Every structure is written in C-alpha cells, then in structure tokens.
C-alpha cells in the first residue's frame, strides 16, 4: 500500500499557502493518487481516512472535481498539513471523522466485523 507516497506528493505540491485554486489542484491530484491505491490499500486505515477527508476538504475549499490536477513541485519547503476535516462526528470528543474508525470507512462499506481476545487466570 503506497498511500504515504500520495501524502508526500500532496505535501510537496502545497508548498505555501496560495490561492484556493492551487490547493484544489493539489487536492484533485491527491484524489487521483489515492484512488490508484484502492486495491492495495483496501485494509489500510490511512487510506480510508484519506478517502473520507478528501471530500470534506474539497467542499471546505469549494473545489470542483472536474478541473485540472498538478504534479508535485520539486524542491519546495514542506508546507503545514492541510486543515483537518470539519467535525461532524456524533461523538465530538473523538475529534475529526478520520479519527473515528466507523466514520472513516467508506459510506457504502459493509459494517465492520469485530473480534475479541481475552487472557486471564492461571
């Protein structure tokens, strides 16, 4: 799973706080990159968080999905990470949706299977 490579490219391409269009261009490239990892990252929480967060960031920055994308810019200083998605969780203390397992899964994903392990006694 190469999701971290997508993250690195996003950091590289959003080198400074620029106009909204620049951020949207970078975000669309990030979206494409994340989509390409769908098969290999299926069981990876970072992937599901990223997938979920992109939609939120797109709407926060009024980005269109149809516009062009950018390539990572070379030799630019690392920018601060993008702002976390808007808090819409029903459990506000959990933080952003990417920090809540159930909320970070794709909306049409089947419910998670939970397992148990116990260790006790002599």
């Amino acid at each position: 799973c190469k999701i971290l490579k997508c993250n690195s490219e996003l950091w590289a391409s959003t080198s400074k706080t620029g106009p909204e269009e620049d951020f949207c261009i970078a975000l669309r490239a990030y979206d494409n990159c994340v989509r390409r990892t769908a098969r290999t990252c299926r069981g990876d929480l970072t992937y599901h968080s990223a997938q979920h967060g992109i939609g939120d960031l797109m709407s926060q920055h009024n980005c269109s999905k149809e516009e062009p994308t950018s390539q990572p810019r070379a030799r630019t200083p690392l920018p601060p990470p993008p702002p976390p998605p808007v808090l819409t969780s029903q459990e506000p203390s959990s933080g952003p949706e990417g920090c809540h397992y159930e909320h970070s899964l794709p909306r049409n994903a089947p419910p998670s299977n939970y397992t148990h392990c116990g260790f006790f006694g002599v």
Partner: protein
Amino acid sequence: PHLRTFGDDFQTCKVEGAWPLIHNKYLSVQVTNSPVVPGSLATATTKLTIIFKNFQQCVDQKMYHAETDQLPSAFADGSKNGGDRHGANALQVVEKVLGQHVEIHARYIGTTIVVRQVGRYLTFAVRMPEEVVNSVEEGDNQDLYLCLHGCPTNQRIDLESFRARAGSRTSAGPRGFTYQSAKAKCKERLPVEDVYFQSCVFDLLSSGDINFTMAAFYAFEDVKMLHSNSNRHHLFKGKA
C-alpha cells in the same frame, strides 16, 4: 493463563515470561507471566504493556504499562488521551474502579481494551475490528502473537485430561480444594459449565487462590461486553 483467541479458540497455556499478544500496524500488546506457585507449570499475568502507535492527525504514540498493584489510570507519560493533536480524544484511558479496572478506548481504530487486576494478577480483554487485527506489518510472519494464532503447541495444557485426573481424586489436592469443592465454588459465579467454568475449576485446583473465581467471572463479563456475537459468548469443550 487461559486464552480466547480472535478466532474463538480457547486454550490454557504455560507461556512463562514475556509474550506478545497482539502486534500490528496500530498497536502492540505484550504480557509477562510468572509461576503462581513454586513447582507448578501454571502461570498468571503480572505485567502488561500496550503501545499505541502514532496515527496521522489523531494521536501521538502512547504506552500503557500495568503491573501487579500498579494499574494506572493514565499512559506512562501521565496523560489520559492521545496527545495534543486535533483528534487526541480518539484515544482515552478511563478508570472504572481505582486500582482494579481500566478501559482504554482507541476510537480511531475501533478498539476497546479492558485491563483488570483480580487478586494479585492481571487480566486482558480486547474488542477490535478484523481490518485492524489483520493489518499485518510487511515481513512479519505473526507466528507468535497469541491472540491471533493461540499458544504454540508445546506451551498448551490439556484442560480435559487435567479435569479427568482431578475428577477421579476424592481427597483435597495440595492447594486445599477437592474437585467437587472447586466446582461448587465456581458454580456460585459461573452457573453454566462452559470453558470459563472449567477454567475457574482448574485455577482453584492449581493455585488454591479463591480470587481466580473472580478472574474467570470478570473474563466472562468482558466477553459479554466486547464480543459481537451473543451466540458465541459461552464456549464448550469436550462435552459438545
């Protein structure tokens, strides 16, 4: 100790010393088991360490460490949540009963952990999504992780043959309980003769420590709280 694996396999193990229970991309759990009485193979858990790994915008790496008579209500650095990040409260330590019962909620990985001290020993229980259980790190063959694959064959104790031997004896064993008196004691807390009941009988006969009645009782209470399939709460062996 007695182990119920993620696959609902139930085993009684020796596993003296330090052993890993869980190790994946998101957390590691290790226990240390010590002999309960000199000369016996039976051991119980005296130390437990859990490491929650750093997770994107949510939580810093945190370690929780418990030992007999030290069941803290905080991580090793004194904090009770996942740090200073926006989603830090997705990881929280909650003290339920001072020095006896702690829950750790790791919401960012859908995981709940229960740690208890019963008598002089610790118990551990976890609820975790399959995706997290199976998030194996590359190159890690996962062979020794007890919750995933159970105890190695040479570390298992056959509860059935132990029960057969104990049942044929009428006098009290070296720890003061007869098979019948141990059964009667365990029946008070565990009316169904499932593996938890059998574990309780084994523990009383091998340790003589009445606290282990409660260890089996709370282990079953934790199953009721954490296991997603109520039809699988009780497990039966031998007489199935």
